[in-house]
């Protein structure tokens, strides 16, 4: 008959047996990860990552805020030029339809000038693009400027 060791019996009744430590440790790690992912607010919500300009539904220009990189797509009927200014990056869009000027600052973009009409809705009626999902449309010039980034799903402005 095997002698039952005093320490074996003691081990069996303890809450923390060796193997159990691993299970509890894994459980704590999983819960910690889940907490980090779901409960701590996303600090990047609504931040602007990229600006894209569409002429007649094709991308003609894109700008990445983090790398400050500019990509211009050569498209028939439209020319895009950029120049640095003290206010930010000035983007000029000249198409058969007309002329628009977009200003890209550190965290936003705004239509500065346009000759679409005297009222220039794209300049006056659209606010600045400040977060993902914001856009500016110049209907007469078939131009669309879109902000790409984390969209703050719950906000609406009228």
């Amino acid at each position, binding site marked *: 008959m095997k002698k039952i060791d005093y320490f074996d019996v003691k081990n069996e009744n303890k*809450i923390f047996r060796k193997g*159990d430590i691993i*299970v*509890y440790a*894994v*459980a704590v790690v*999983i*819960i910690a990860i*889940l907490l980090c*992912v*779901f409960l701590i607010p996303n600090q990047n919500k609504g931040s602007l990552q990229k600006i894209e300009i569409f002429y007649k539904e094709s991308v003609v220009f894109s700008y990445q805020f983090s790398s400050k990189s500019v990509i211009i797509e050569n498209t028939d009927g439209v020319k895009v030029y950029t120049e640095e200014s003290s206010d930010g990056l000035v983007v000029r869009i000249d198409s058969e339809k007309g002329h628009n000027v977009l200003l890209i600052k550190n965290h936003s973009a705004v239509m500065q000038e346009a000759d*679409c*009409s*005297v*009222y220039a*809705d794209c300049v006056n*009626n659209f*606010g*600045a693009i400040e977060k993902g999902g914001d*856009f500016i*449309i110049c*209907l*007469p010039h078939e131009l*669309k400027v879109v902000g790409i980034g984390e*969209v703050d*799903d*719950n*906000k*609406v*402005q*009228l």
Partner: protein
Amino acid sequence: MKKIVIVLVLIILFSAVGCTAGDNAVGFTEYGYFGAVLTVKGYCKKSVMDEIKDETKEFLAEFSLKVDESISGSDLYNFNNAIDGQTIEVSEVTYKLLSKAKDAYSLTNGDYNPCVYHLVDLWGFSKRFFTNYKKTKVYDRDFVDNYYPLPDAKYIDAFKQLTDFSKVEFSENNGVYTLTKNNTKVSLDGIDYYLKLDIGGIIKGYVTDVVRAIMVTKNVTKGYVNYGTSSLCLLDNADNTGWELTLTHPRQSGTYCDMRISNKFVATSGDYERFYDVDGKRYSHLIDSKTGYPIDNGVCSVTVFCDDGLLSDALSTALSVGGKEKIKSFANSEYAINNGIKVVAVFEENGELKVFSTQEITLKKGIEYEKN
């Protein structure tokens, strides 16, 4: 004990995965109809949103062919180009839309008035001024820098007479719908002018009604429809806590208030949407059919919250024309209270902006409620 912990962790893991496996926000944007941008957002499967998009596009295409007065052959085009006594047959959709316009006209005692076509054109706010404007009418002026010179008073007086909606005869017989304008003619300098309709004041609200209905038939209960950033239909938000809605400040960039709200139609009319300044005075696209002039009553912005899209649109237009006292008395009226209609307005007095509201809102810094 170990088993309990394992089970607990599994439950937490699965429920976390379950939470994120819900529908994400999807949506689409549509431009080019009635000169405004339509944005639809919903919490549903992408395939469902694609169906909503297709049905919405189909509706807008068919609808604009009937009611866009700039499209040759549309019901509105035909009616607007008709002379007195000429009976114009229209589609049922057009007839019903204009009947609702008539109801809004009666309800607001003419403050909402679709018969402002000639005045809107005279003051430089019709569609042709937003594309390549060229002088074509005898009363057209050249733009000077940023403003449009004021029109000749004789035209204001003449076109003011073209705003009697009761002179439009509605007739329905065996599924045939017709409209006839009677005795509307005004002659000036050898040119005859007849009553013409401008449905700009209700069209966006009506479209949000229809798109909402499309979403409801697809069982989408969370999302919104935003048309031209002046007409909005809010459904529920993602977690049923209410959308964070902000209202555009009428005199500076940004917003002037915010609130939590769901399941309402919201419409705003403001003198900051389309305007020009002449000698320090603002002339906006909101025309008072009784004076023939753009509003000049200290109202900068009116937002109406209501359970009907077309009505919210018509009311915001009407109240901006009605003025401060009418806004307050309407907002506190039995009609508004019984119909769950709330109003927020911004008035300008002695250079200061003041807010009036029957809707629960939080004002941002720099603007105050008016003292009663």
